[in-house]
């Protein structure tokens, strides 16, 4: 003990550490033994807290690590693969794109506004920590049934939170996705993505170095928020009691984040910083431990120096707090004042709280007492890793489809209208109109189409980005389903004129202790890995979210793909909108529509089928190349891929997105009308092309071996779809627009 302290100023609370307390902290018996072994003694209370968060599923990836190694993570463009705060790729002109997607599922279910908001805040920090200025956000959302009683509250809160944070912090939210499915009734998904750009030689890595270098604490003060928040919440099943974990709720302060971005970027532009890292899940502990581990050094923290919101915060709480908008900086010795000057000008705290040491230990002192001293290794490399049992489910998901029992609707116009107003196909405008998509002055293709495209001024080109996952497909076949998600992402990028370059992923799954969940997980990774190799799109960052279970039921497996592509020239992009009459409408690609697993089957007939549509990766690749080429060359500026809802939905969306111009098309129907109109498949794209551009597209298509069919032309104000002369659909674009655009506001209002 150091100098005698009075009780009023010493807030160390240190209950006796026992195995039972270890178990309460979420450690298993075996893990507790290993803790004792690593230390050669019983841990202190603070050390127990540190082990429990560092070894949590969320921080240690203990169930997923053995599988993630299968992802291809290298390639000619990769500047930074997984392992840092975010991944990075070369985008030409000496510039890099830094990006990552991350989950904030459980916090968003407990408090949707703050959960979503702090999710956005966290992913932004992961990106600007690397030295990159964030220029685009996306969000991938899953809610329960549209008519579930909690859905309006959760939807409203999450969207307001994403917008509330992103708009205020000043980064454009340019895209995302939102789906409704009963499988998420008790466990919604909120995945947030950020992309930033930085010059190659300005990329920062969070690796502590330089024995004796000071460690600075920057940003908001530490409070009690989120003790065991993200880490433990995301590391166990969701139970009724979880809703009681209210002290774990974190509140975001986008204003401080905005200042933090500017101040950090300014500080990183100088030469005073060795490493910088945000305090994310498990706060101060995991940020310092990770920096120490990457640099192969030790870190010693003086907890008396931590800026506190409330003086009674204990050392245990300081180590575990997940208060937002905080960073840890390793400064060069003697440069602290330069840094303090910058941060203070932005109104931010910047205080030395420790030093880099050579003993390879994570140490923390409080009031002259050492409250923690742990080998860094024990917390990182030597953290538990489990090869959990894997078993395919006894019976396959879904039920075999008996097409004979699926009655074809008599009024296909009514069916189309109904589908356009269904929860998963209706307009997302209610969502993205709550997001500022203009700020930054770089948004070339705004939300509402396929991928979003953002300009890169330094290169004159652009970056296309999209998030995708059809979890029904994945549930029916995790391998093919995950590949469909990738193919759709590649297609979404291609139809805006980009070429998919690399990706991040957020693997949202159920309880990994269930062998069937691990089977889904492992199969999805295999499928994605194969597709990554095939498309040449390595995984540069990502996140795993397990334990998405409520009351024993797992969510549908949801490996969300966040794909980033390069657009050569900011002046040549395409959108889905039909802007002109008298253009020729063509269908490219040879995917054969199927009813199995389609949105139509689920909405109109209430069943799912038993497998996703067939997938042809080679066809996808050729089709994507064709789209990028013809758009790049300026032959085409209207293109849209076919995904959920099939051909009829896609063409309707193209009419709706423009000024109201209709089109007349005639399709060849082999079998059933509903299959032709609403069946789903991979590898199909629609384009509307000027008459004088059609030959060029035809030539390119022939060269790449992509089938091209002329379907009809644009014009008038009605969408007409005929098959071999018989009119199947005949609707005013205005009416379709009305059905499509009013559906989501009704869901949000609980109407």
């Amino acid at each position, binding site marked *: 003990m150091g100098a005698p302290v009075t009780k009023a100023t010493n807030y160390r609370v240190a209950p006796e550490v026992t195995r039972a307390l270890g178990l309460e902290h979420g450690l298993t018996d075996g893990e507790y033994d290993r803790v004792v072994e690593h230390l050669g003694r019983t841990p202190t209370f603070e050390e127990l807290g540190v082990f429990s968060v560092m070894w949590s599923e969320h921080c240690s990836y203990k169930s997923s690590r053995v599988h993630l190694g299968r992802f291809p993570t290298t390639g000619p463009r990769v500047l930074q693969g997984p392992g840092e705060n975010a991944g990075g790729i070369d985008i030409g002109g000496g510039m890099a794109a830094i990006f990552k997607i991350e989950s904030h599922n459980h916090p968003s279910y407990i408090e949707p506004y703050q959960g979503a908001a702090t999710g956005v805040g966290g992913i932004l920090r992961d990106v600007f920590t690397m030295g990159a200025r964030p220029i685009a956000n996306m969000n991938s959302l899953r809610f329960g049934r549209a008519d579930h009683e909690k859905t309006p509250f959760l939807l409203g809160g999450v969207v*307001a939170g994403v*917008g*509330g944070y992103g*708009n*205020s*912090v*000043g980064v454009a939210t340019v895209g995302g996705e939102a789906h409704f499915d009963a499988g998420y009734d008790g466990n919604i998904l909120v995945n947030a993505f950020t992309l930033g750009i930085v010059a190659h030689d300005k990329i920062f890595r969070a690796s502590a170095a330089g024995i004796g270098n000071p460690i600075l604490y920057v940003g908001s003060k530490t409070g009690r928020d989120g003790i065991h928040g993200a880490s433990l919440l995301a590391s166990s099943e969701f139970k009724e009691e979880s809703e009681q974990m209210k002290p774990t709720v974190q509140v975001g*302060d*986008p*204003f*401080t984040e*905005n*200042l933090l971005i500017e101040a950090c970027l300014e500080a990183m532009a100088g030469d005073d910083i060795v490493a910088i890292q945000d305090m994310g899940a498990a706060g101060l502990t995991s940020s310092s431990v990770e920096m120490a581990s990457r640099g192969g050094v030790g870190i010693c923290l003086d907890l008396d120096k931590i800026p506190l919101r409330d003086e009674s915060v204990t050392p245990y709480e300081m180590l575990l707090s997940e208060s937002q908008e905080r960073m840890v900086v390793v400064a060069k010795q003697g440069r602290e004042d330069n840094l303090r000057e910058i941060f203070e000008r*932005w*109104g931010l705290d910047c205080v030395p709280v420790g030093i880099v040491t050579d003993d390879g230990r994570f140490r923390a002192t409080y009031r002259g007492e050492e409250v923690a001293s742990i080998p860094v290794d024990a917390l990182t490399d030597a953290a538990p890793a489990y090869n959990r049992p894997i078993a395919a489910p006894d019976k396959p998901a879904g039920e075999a489809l008996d097409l004979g029992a699926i009655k074809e609707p008599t009024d296909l116009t009514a069916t189309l209208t109904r589908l356009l107003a269904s929860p998963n196909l209706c307009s997302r405008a209610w969502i*993205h*109109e*709550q*997001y*500022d*998509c*203009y*700020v*930054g*002055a*770089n*948004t*070339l293709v705004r939300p509402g189409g396929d991928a979003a495209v953002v*300009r890169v001024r330094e290169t004159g080109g652009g970056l296309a980005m999209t998030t995708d996952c059809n979890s029904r497909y994945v549930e029916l076949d995790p391998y093919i389903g995950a590949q469909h998600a990738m193919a759709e992402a590649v297609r979404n990028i291609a139809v805006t004129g980009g070429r998919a370059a690399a990706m991040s992923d957020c693997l949202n799954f159920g309880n990994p202790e269930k062998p069937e969940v691990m089977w889904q997980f492992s199969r999805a990774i295999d499928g994605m890995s194969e597709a990554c190799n095939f498309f040449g799109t390595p995984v540069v960052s990502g996140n795993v979210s397990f334990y998405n279970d409520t009351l024993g039921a797992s969510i549908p497996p949801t490996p969300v793909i966040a794909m980033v592509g390069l657009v050569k020239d*900011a*002046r040549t992009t395409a959108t889905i909108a039909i802007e002109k009459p008298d253009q020729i409408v063509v269908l490219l690609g040879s995917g054969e529509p199927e009813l199995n697993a389609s949105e139509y089957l689920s909405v109109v007939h209430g069943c799912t089928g038993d497998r996703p549509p067939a997938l042809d990766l080679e066809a996808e690749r050729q089709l994507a190349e064709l789209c990028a080429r013809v758009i790049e060359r300026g032959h085409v500026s209207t293109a849209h891929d076919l995904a959920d809802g099939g051909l009829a939905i896609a063409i309707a969306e193209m009419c709706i997105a423009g000024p109201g111009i209709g089109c007349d098309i005639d399709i060849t129907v082999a079998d059933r009308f509903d299959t032709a109109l609403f069946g789903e498949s991979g590898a199909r794209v629609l384009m509307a092309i000027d008459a004088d551009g059609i030959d060029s597209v035809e030539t390119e298509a022939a060269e790449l071996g992509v089938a091209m069919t002329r379907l009809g032309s644009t014009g008038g104000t009605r969408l007409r779809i005929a098959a071999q002369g018989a009119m199947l659909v005949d609707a005013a674009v205005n009416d379709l627009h009305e059905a499509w655009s009013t559906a989501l506001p009704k869901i949000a209002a609980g109407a």
Partner: protein
Amino acid sequence: MKWGVLHFPGSNDERDTIYALESVLGYHARLLWHGDRNLADCDAIVLPGGFSYGDYLRCGALARFSPVMEAVADFAKSGGPVLGICNGFQVLCEAGLLPGALVQNRGLKFRCVPATLTVENNTTAFTLGYEDGAQAVIPIKHGEGCYVADQSTLAEIQDHGQIVFRYTSNPNGSIDDIAGVCNREGNVVGLMPHPEHAVDPLTGVTDGQPLFRSVDQWKQAA
């Protein structure tokens, strides 16, 4: 012409405004820090959009006390052209340099959509370049853009031609569809829509260009 663009903590569109002014429109433009007490010989001042001081308490309420705002008030009084965009408009209202106030959208939600405006007064420093009654498409993006004023203020600004822009289709519940107003002299203008995001053909429409160009005419006439 040299433009000064204020930078409060929490401003978001200040760099976009500089980009619009310099790279698209070819003016000189510079950032002015909220703690500065002079305007560095700028010929026109923009208060940009964003969330100054987090927009905590009320939008624009905390920014109006920044040291730089005293200089802006003097500049405005001496007839210098001052433009408040979105949050900048809110700051000007809070500072009493423009009449009225902005409150939460009637729909209670942030809205980011293109809005069509009618130019109601084309004699101000920022509208000389528009035809009288011209329409312009300029995006809005705000949660608190509902313009309010009491009856007497409303009558007064109506009588003095201080209503500068109206929405053709009201997106936020503003009284009388008001999207922008000016002071009596017409040198201080505030509007909720974002003209700086309506100048570059690559990112959308260009209907915001005349707004900035108007200042050239205003200066010449002065």
